[in-house]
């Protein structure tokens, strides 16, 4: 067991290290130094104070230690990453990237965790029912529709929802996490506002991902029905509800949970794009702003944090899995 946990932790470290390393080398493969270029561009076009540019240039020069050997630069960079020190933002200088991320992260996590759990729950139940009651008329109409929705990317569905419910019908705001004039605070009115703004982004993730879980669960449920233990359970004269939950779903759930761990990467990708579409104040929108303005330290920071989130979520699922599957527990 300990060995297994150890292996998973090594994996997480490797994933994060790989992401950080790619982060470090990708800009250096480019023919020109994008940061220097961006700074000159900023100096030329915008009204930023030239002395500030000077200061920034020095700060970034020192940070990236461009005069030092590559290996030294790399080691220093990895050290910084390990301490979550992503340096300072270019566009919002001298704000620290970690602070910017800290502000945006709760929005992203809130949206992602709620929608993922809800989608997993609804999709799994729906898929289980669709796989079990294969003669049901209602399910044979509903489930293909939901499964087709799973083919449509989150953000595309988001755009469709914005067009219908926000732009045409005006039921929900077009964008943002809260009203333009409001200030974040702990109040009832603000909470309602946040919910209103979160509905469409959440719905677009939900509708599009419920089908994914339903498809997987339906397939597993069909497989489980063919297993010898289902035949025996049925021969015992068990009640249909017990067959469905205790024998069918209980066994079919195992691969679903494994799939959940593998799916986190896609969820993050999807959520980032949904945030962009809705201008939701999370990491996705921060990423978009940074891309537009070539704010590389912020981009790196976001990539690093999101990769870490994915890797840790996978670790969590791996650690919880033995609770569900006795065969994964070590020892007889």
């Amino acid at each position, binding site marked *: 067991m300990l060995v297994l946990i150890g292996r998973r932790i090594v994996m997480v470290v490797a994933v994060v290290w790989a992401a950080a390393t790619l982060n470090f080398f990708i800009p250096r493969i480019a023919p020109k130094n994008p940061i220097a270029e961006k700074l000159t561009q900023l100096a030329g076009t915008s009204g930023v104070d030239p002395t500030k540019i000077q200061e920034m240039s020095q700060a970034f020069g020192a940070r990236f230690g461009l005069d030092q050997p590559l290996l030294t630069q790399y080691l220093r960079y990895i050290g910084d990453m390990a301490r979550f020190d992503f340096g300072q933002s270019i566009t919002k200088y001298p704000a620290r990237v970690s602070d910017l991320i800290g502000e945006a992260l709760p929005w992203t996590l809130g949206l992602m965790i709620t929608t993922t759990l809800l989608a997993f729950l609804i999709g799994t139940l729906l898929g289980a029912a669709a796989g079990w009651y294969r003669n049901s008329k209602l399910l044979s109409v509903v489930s293909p529709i939901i499964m087709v929705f799973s083919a449509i990317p989150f953000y595309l569905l988001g755009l469709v929802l914005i067009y219908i419910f926000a732009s045409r019908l005006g039921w929900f705001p077009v964008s943002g996490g809260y009203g333009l004039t409001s200030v974040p605070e702990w109040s009832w009115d603000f909470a309602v506002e946040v919910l209103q703004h979160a509905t469409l982004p959440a719905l677009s993730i939900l509708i599009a991902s419920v089908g994914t879980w339903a498809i997987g669960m339906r397939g597993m449920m069909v497989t489980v029905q063919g297993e010898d233990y289902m*035949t025996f*359970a049925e021969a*015992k*004269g068990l009640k249909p509800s017990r067959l469905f939950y205790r024998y069918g779903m209980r066994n079919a759930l195992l691969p679903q949970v494994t799939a959940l761990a593998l799916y986190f990467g896609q969820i993050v990708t999807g959520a980032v794009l949904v945030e962009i579409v809705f201008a939701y104040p999370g990491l996705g929108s921060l990423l978009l702003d940074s891309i537009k303005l070539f704010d590389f330290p912020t981009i790196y920071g976001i990539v690093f944090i999101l990769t870490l989130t994915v890797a840790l979520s996978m670790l969590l699922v791996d650690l919880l899995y033995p609770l569900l599957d006795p065969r994964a527990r070590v020892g007889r």
Partner: protein
Amino acid sequence: MTLLQVSNLSVDFFTTRQIVHAVRDVSLAVAAGERVGLVGESGSGKTTTALALMRMLKPPGRIVAGSARIGDLDLVGLKGPAIRAARLKTISYIPQGAMNSLSPVLRVREQMLDGLADHGIRLSAREAKARVDDALAGVGLAASVADLFPHQLSGGMKQRVCIAIAMMLDPKIIIADEPTSALDVISQRQVIQTLHMAQKRIGCGMVIIGHDMGLMAQATDRIIVMKDGRIVEDAPTRRLFAAPQHAYSAELIESVPTLGSRPSRPSGERPAAGAPFLELTGVSKTFGGGLLGGDSKQALAPIDLRIDAERPRVIAVVGQSGSGKTTLARIMLGLEPPSEGQFRYRGQDVSQLSVPERARFRREVQAIFQDPYASFNPFYRVDHALLMPLLHLGAAGSRTEAREAMEAACRDVGLNPREVLGRFPHELSGGQRQRLMIARALALKPRLIVADEPVSMVDASLRMTILNNLRALRQEHAISVVYITHDLATAYQVSDEVIVLYDGRLVEAGAPERVIEKPQHAYTRALVSAIPWPDPDRNWPLVEPDRASWNQPAVVQPGATCLG
């Protein structure tokens, strides 16, 4: 007293293309305390009959006629919740596949008690424990088994748990579908014994579904033979074996080898001269281990074996799963390098053969595998499998020559080339495919064929044909055969020498008359006495596995070519 009376039961499967009559007009009766065997090949309708009685047929299958009465209850006429209520309480069914009949995620206790709960039996924690302990004791298992998960039990234990569950509500009828499939011969005996004991305790009628006539001879009072969905014979076991009325029953009985009826074989073997054809010296195999491999496991302890080309012999390698017999076969085929020891072909280390020598080795040492369905690439016609070695190993000079050799080999194994060649594997039966595999090896004019369980996946009526093909290899083509099997009876029939393996070690080697008729080693003795011979009058003793005694040193009888 008749407990179960089935009359004119018919089951049809309504597929989109046709209606398949899976069970036709089946009538049978089972009395209290009686053990009835339902025998037939796959597709004969045995399991479908059982599922129909349980009312567990899945669409497109449907009972189209007949009745099945237990007392006043007509199982066929039951509707809705009454069907569920009858299961376990009136009629119990233990499905095939002991390995997977219990849900892997629930403890044994829960799987024993949920049947009671769903039949409206409310028990206090203490009563529940007593019921579970009793039921487990009834099948010879400790009470602690209840707190385990299925993966913590052996195959035999799982099957006994299933029997315990099926008995929980003292049903009138128990149907056990192939209760010993996938079990080794010693556990098989124990499971049948458990079934008998439990049956005696509650006095129910029992139906045992199976295909092994030896097992049926030992385990039943009466046998019903099914073929293509119909009953062809229904007779007391003793009478059926003494004088089968139907030709198919006779065929089934004859297909099982018996002791003491071994065909005589020509003697006059010349002693070998020069380097032996194949020679294994201290060959062993260990899997795993090393930096990343985890725990290492010795699959085969050091073994010596020698095969002379001038002196063709059939050597049977007998062992249960995990005995190392397949590892030995793979080493002899050069598919797996030995971890230690020397494997020589005509005096040369096999790992150091030059390219032409390697081709010659491949030509001279060929194989037949267990699964005739998997041995052919489904993408190609069967000719591909037969031509490939002829062309790649330089056994045929041209395509025409290869085709001729292929057709000749087909005729040698009794197949009509025009019927089987040019077809895709799925168009041929398992027996045809396995004989094609023999033809494939034969076309190369090999000196040795390693046959790994060649008949275990072929229907019983075809087994003898294939074994005769193997025997003909030695007698007519002077090819040595290494026959790998778990079945001592067929080993006894076809071999000149028997090698018994247990847990990767050699335990006994020698002529079959000695090893199987007068076994010396404790393990061989246990194995031989656990064989259910197809003779209802023969005693089938219960063997208590005494694993400690099995570790005694190997017994190598005079004249054997194998050494541990």
